[in-house]
């Protein structure tokens, strides 16, 4: 009896907490279906005037550029980021864990140190370099780092995973005369699948939500990904039109939430074992 009462209390407390924590998200989704006049001055979730009007307005986009275009830009950047991150982090991790070369320890230490490096220390010179070579207002500055393993988190994730793969596997392949490229492609990559999936999910979400990078490098609106488009939308719409603004915010978050529903287990595992932030 005491036990089931305790269980009841546990679920009761948990559900109340979840209601509080998820209120902003639920309020956002509900508001996206409400007329602007009902969003402000109203803490309630339910409305009798739910409609898709805000979404229709939000899909129109800004300044003659449709929201679909921004979606496409975000998607392109996110997918390219995933490819770049997987390419560079697996190669780098293989070098660090499977090949013996002078300088390995030194560079590994350097890589770990860059884990804690604040991004803001390097943005100014990076910007200057990209500006000098005329690559501002292209996607190159946003993607180059991903292909060159500049996001140490992903390299570290792969190294941790690869370290736990038995060395006997590649040693056996070496005795059979396989070179590093063969071993990397046909032995390591298939075994790395779980960590490649984790890295891909986070690379996608981080790119999707990134604001500072596009803010620095992109000038023409038709190249904007969603976060920048949202900001433009906020600047140009009168702040009273919360409806369309919130509808567009919901649209921008939709892929991330969808990702979470599909890959929940991978994401939670990635956070708990690798300390990856959301």
């Amino acid at each position, binding site marked *: 009896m005491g036990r089931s009462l305790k269980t009841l209390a546990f679920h009761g407390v948990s559900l109340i907490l979840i209601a509080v924590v998820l209120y902003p998200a639920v309020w956002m989704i509900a508001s996206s279906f409400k007329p602007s006049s009902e969003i402000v001055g109203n803490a309630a979730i339910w409305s009798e005037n739910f409609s898709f009007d805000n979404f229709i307005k939000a899909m129109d986009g800004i300044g003659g550029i449709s929201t679909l275009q921004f979606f496409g830009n975000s998607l392109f950047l996110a997918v390219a980021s995933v490819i770049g991150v997987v390419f560079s982090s697996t190669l780098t991790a293989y070098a660090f864990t499977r090949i013996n070369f002078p300088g390995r320890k030194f*560079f590994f230490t350097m890589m770990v140190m860059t884990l804690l490096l604040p991004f803001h220390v390097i943005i100014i*010179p990076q910007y200057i370099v990209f500006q000098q070579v005329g690559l501002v207002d292209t996607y190159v500055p946003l993607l180059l780092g991903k292909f*060159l393993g500049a996001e140490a988190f992903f390299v570290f994730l792969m190294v941790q995973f690869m370290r736990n793969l038995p060395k006997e596997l590649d040693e056996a392949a070496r005795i059979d005369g396989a070179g590093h490229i063969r071993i990397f492609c046909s032995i390591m990559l298939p075994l790395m699948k779980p960590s490649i999936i984790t890295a891909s999910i986070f690379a996608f979400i981080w790119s999707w939500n990134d604001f500072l990078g596009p803010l620095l490098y992109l000038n023409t609106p038709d190249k904007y990904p969603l976060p920048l488009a949202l900001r433009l939308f906020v600047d140009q719409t009168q702040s009273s039109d919360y409806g369309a603004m919130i509808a567009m915010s919901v649209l921008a*978050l939709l892929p991330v939430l969808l990702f979470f529903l599909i890959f929940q287990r991978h994401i939670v595992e990635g956070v708990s074992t690798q300390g990856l932030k959301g």
Partner: protein
Amino acid sequence: MTHTQAPTRRAKSAPPQRNEKLKLRRAESRAGYAFLLPWLLGFFVLTAGPMIASLYLSFTNYNLFEAPKWIGVDNYVNLLSDERFIQSVKVTLTYVVFGTPTKLLAALAIAMLLNSKRRGQGFYRSAFYVPSLIGASVSIAIVWKAMFGDAGPVDQFLSFFGIGLGGWVGNPNMTMPMMILLTVWQFGAPMIIFLAGLKQVPAELYEAAEMDGAGWGRKFASITWPMLSPVIFFNLLMETINAFQVFASAFIISGGTGGPAGSTMFYTLYLYLRGFGDFRMGYASAMAWLLLIVIGIITLIFFKTSDKWVHYSGDEK
């Protein structure tokens, strides 16, 4: 090479094979650097190079159009008398000092609540994690601004209890609590890490303590806290470093101004405004290096004091 060695070893070190071995090692080195090439390029061109460059620039006046002019430590000296800079330091430190511990306490409390073998735990864990996933996005910053604005739901709710504060967004005294609530709301990621740590604590320890009549507080102080201290250390370090770098939410909520009355002028926002608004690249570089030094010192303090309060149990690692 002596006669006492096993025949196989002697054969390996005989001159022709030795050459072979050297060749092999060279091939290994080449392969190593070939695989490392993308990262090496990124490290030198995108990380180490820019770091040195920004250190140099921090001693110059540079506006992107004329050549950098060496001015010594002037940028650093000027920072000390720059009121907006001092304001940004105050804002950021307040945010770090109050926001991070609150967030971690919430994370720990809810992790302890969830750490049981009851059904539904997985669902709760995922639900609590959602804000961490979306919290730093522009979308949520917009929603936050609407929620805490004049007559927004937060104001409505508080007015119901007779605590009418009006909109938080336009009130310089309330923007900091609003920003701290936004970071505390994202307690899910450290909570998941705490949960993973709690699962590692052997249940026998609690059972033994209960037999000795230990109460809840005693169990927490003598078992949970010390056993969890490596995880607490990790979370505290990472969350502190991240808190220094908050940008998008402050930018969107204040419309890129750091207002009202400089109350959301976070360090990174001011750095951005100086570097990319006024094109004072040298000045912004000095700010970037100060940030790096402060984060470096904090990391060092964390590691230096860790042996006093972080316990690594002997049988693990």
